[in-house]
């Protein structure tokens, strides 16, 4: 039997074993990604084990990765033999006995805690939505995240049952490297790490460079504040990335690969280690994989805390044991990379798409998304939004769809001001551009960037100057110092922003920011520097009046910047004259006689809000 048929059969057998009807014991599955654990999943897991032991139950307690609903963590699934898999959200330790007593023992779903159920298997439940009916999932199209929150990331059988390693078997036994590259090119896959370089072309260039040794690297040095999709994929479905790397290695002719993960992701590293061991045991890594004669193995390299190592040449320097500093390109890594050998570097999410392209065929894949940006993109939705979490949508979806239809809009009362996309290398998109389709070209046009996919929703209480300063401070402190524009230029820009945010802004500052920013964009050695001005330039473009208010009126319209916030005022009619505010005020700005209305001296008030917070009759509020 051929390798492909063999694997398909193993998958079928496992699937049957695992299928909704085929399981003989009740299963309790806890979402154990880093975010779930931070929300208390480990305690919930312990409580389940305890309850199961106390009651001497014959159930399987398992784990899965993150399904993306951060808002509802910790999540817990219960599935009875022959029944649907039901998810419970915001589960506390105290809820565990109830869920077990009711659902596991008596088959009665605890409706007030249930979030959704998996409809596959033709189930229908009254009163609880299926996952497909939830707004959060309705418009999503999951490829990279397809298994996250479904399978046990520490079980290779789970991955195989979901169709895993079949693409790898097909590639190694039935396709030539050239055919693989042609397929990926036709699929139109572009790098998901930020710049969007066509993946197939990168593979072709690396394949085309003659060498006795070549390398594949998975860039898992996800460092953008506000982006965590790579961590989630590695924690929830590590085999998918490994399979992508084997296929990439075969296509370019590499025998060795590295996964460069930040040390701050210990759980991802642990799950990768387990997955690598399992893949080796099955012969998916090692010599002559699937009897094809193709040898390939992978190693994990831990980062040591340097944001710039997300840049490919810096990353390679770090693997070689040196300071992670970028070097000029060309030569590109495809020609001269790790230890001077041709090297192909892809991001985690990019690699997570590869097996699916082979499995579905390029024609199926490139039907998703837009012409220039095929497939899907994962976004980390955070900030002032009802449903925070990880979402995967077809390229070309509008910001409005993502924020309002999937994300549920802003919490009540808040009004959208801007969306920050792409982290420190991206930009702020104002509310009036909400119908912008999310694809590489459109984002670039408005001064943002796909970046790694962080999406921070901001409301009117956000100061755009302060946001720009936050991101610039980040890139400034992470600048490696090798090239002058980035090292000195970002420092000067930050000084100007610090000045503007502390009442010291002067006429001409904005023009200077613009000029400096454009020079840094043009002349920096690597993308860290070249994209560092983006948050400043895009806010300057869309929120210039806010900068001007800081400079000319010494006023922060969003009441964020210290010393420029509106002073607090007392509602004289409501004040009972208790004097609490006068005692609390750190600067003695409140005066008044006992039992008479008090007043706040606007000149002295530092707008710390201590008075308003403690006022027993809520008579103090911030002025306009």
């Amino acid at each position, binding site marked *: 039997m051929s390798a492909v048929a063999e694997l398909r059969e193993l998958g079928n057998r496992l699937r049957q074993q695992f299928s909704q009807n085929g399981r003989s014991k009740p299963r309790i599955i806890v979402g154990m990604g880093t975010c779930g654990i931070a929300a208390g999943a480990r305690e919930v897991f312990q409580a389940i084990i305890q309850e199961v032991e106390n009651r001497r139950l014959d159930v399987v307690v398992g784990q899965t990765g993150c399904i993306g609903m951060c808002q509802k963590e910790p999540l817990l699934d219960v599935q009875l033999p022959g029944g649907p898999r039901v998810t419970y959200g915001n589960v506390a330790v105290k809820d565990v006995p109830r869920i077990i007593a009711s659902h596991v023992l008596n088959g009665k779903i605890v409706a007030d805690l249930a979030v959704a159920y998996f409809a596959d298997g033709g189930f229908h439940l009254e009163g609880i939505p299926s996952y497909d009916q939830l707004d959060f999932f309705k418009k999503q199209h999951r490829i990279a995240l397809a298994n996250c929150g479904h399978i046990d990331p520490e079980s290779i059988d789970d991955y195989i049952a979901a169709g895993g390693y079949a693409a790898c078997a097909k590639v190694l036994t039935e396709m030539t490297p050239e055919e693989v590259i042609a397929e990926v090119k036709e699929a139109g896959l572009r790098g998901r790490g930020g710049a969007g370089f066509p993946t197939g072309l990168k593979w072709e260039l690396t394949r085309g460079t003659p060498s006795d040794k070549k390398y594949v690297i998975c860039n898992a040095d996800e460092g953008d504040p506000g982006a965590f999709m790579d961590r989630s994929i590695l924690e929830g479905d590590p085999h998918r990335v490994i399979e992508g790397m084997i296929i990439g290695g075969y296509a370019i002719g590499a025998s060795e690969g590295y996964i460069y993960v930040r*040390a701050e992701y210990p759980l991802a590293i642990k799950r990768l280690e387990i997955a690598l061991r399992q893949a080796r045991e099955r012969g998916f890594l090692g010599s002559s994989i699937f009897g094809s004669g193709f040898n390939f193995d992978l190693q994990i*390299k*831990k980062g*040591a*805390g*340097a944001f710039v190592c997300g840049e490919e040449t810096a990353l390679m320097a*770090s*693997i*070689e*044991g*040196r*300071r*992670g*500093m970028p070097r000029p390109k060309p030569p590109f890594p495809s020609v001269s990379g790790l230890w001077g050998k041709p090297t192909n570097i892809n991001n985690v999410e990019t690699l997570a798409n590869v097996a699916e392209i082979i499995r579905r065929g390029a024609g199926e894949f490139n039907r998703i998304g837009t012409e220039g940006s095929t497939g899907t993109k994962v976004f980390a939705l955070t900030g002032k939004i009802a449903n925070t979490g990880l979402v995967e949508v077809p390229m070309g979806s509008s910001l409005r769809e993502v924020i309002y239809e999937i994300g549920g809009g802003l919490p009540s009362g808040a009004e959208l001001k801007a969306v920050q996309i792409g982290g420190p290398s991206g930009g702020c998109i104002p509310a009036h551009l909400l119908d912008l389709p999310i694809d590489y070209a459109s984002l670039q046009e408005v001064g943002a960037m796909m970046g790694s996919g962080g999406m921070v929703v901001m409301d009117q209480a956000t100061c755009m100057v302060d946001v720009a300063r936050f991101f610039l401070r980040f890139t400034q402190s992470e600048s*490696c110092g090798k090239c002058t524009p980035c090292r000195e230029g970002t420092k000067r820009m930050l000084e100007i922003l610090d000045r503007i945010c502390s009442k010291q802004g002067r006429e001409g500052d904005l023009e200077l920011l613009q000029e400096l920013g454009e020079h840094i964009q043009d002349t920096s050695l690597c993308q860290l520097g070249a994209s560092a001005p983006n948050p400043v330039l895009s806010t300057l473009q869309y929120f210039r009046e806010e900068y001007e208010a800081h400079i000319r009126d010494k006023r922060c319209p969003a009441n964020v910047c*210290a*010393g420029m916030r509106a002073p607090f005022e007392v509602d004289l009619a409501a004040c009972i004259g208790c004097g609490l505010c006068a005692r*609390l005020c*750190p*600067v003695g700005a409140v005066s008044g006689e006992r039992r008479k209305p008090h007043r706040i001296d606007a000149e002295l008030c*530092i707008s*710390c*809000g*201590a008075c308003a*917070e*403690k006022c027993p009759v809520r008579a103090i509020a911030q002025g306009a």
Partner: protein
Amino acid sequence: MGCICTDGNREMQIDLAPLEQILAGYAREERWLIPILQDAQDVYGYLPFEVLQAIARHVQVSFSKVYGVVTFYTQFHLKPRGRNVIKVCTGTACHVRGGGEVLAALEEALRIKAGETTPDLEFTLETVACLGACGLAPVIMVNEDTHGRVNPDSIKAILDSYRKTAPREVAAV
């Protein structure tokens, strides 16, 4: 970070036996430098001078290169860090309510300056711009706990609650 040659910590005796064990597991190649540094810091808590020297010899790279790598990555520390990290807020509200005196009192009580660590490795003292708890000013943070409305007199009880032997009596606000 000052010049390591004059580092007072050099006087401490460093037991190199655990390092030898780590080094035995790695080939003598530059590519293993960072993994070795990571393992060594796991054992020693920081990277002492003697340890760096031995590592440089092992991977056959000059000491200055090793030093360059160590100072490049934020994960690595050349000086021991305290078991407890104290962050003193120096924001506006804390400043006007006596944050400066609190910092001075901490420096006096611990006999170190901001940015330093006590010789017994119990405390590291740092300052931060604003902890966002102005209503509780002055504020300090010890590890993950926020302590509000502290004054020079309440410092001692807070410090004692974090010392190894003492029970944690002071409730965090």
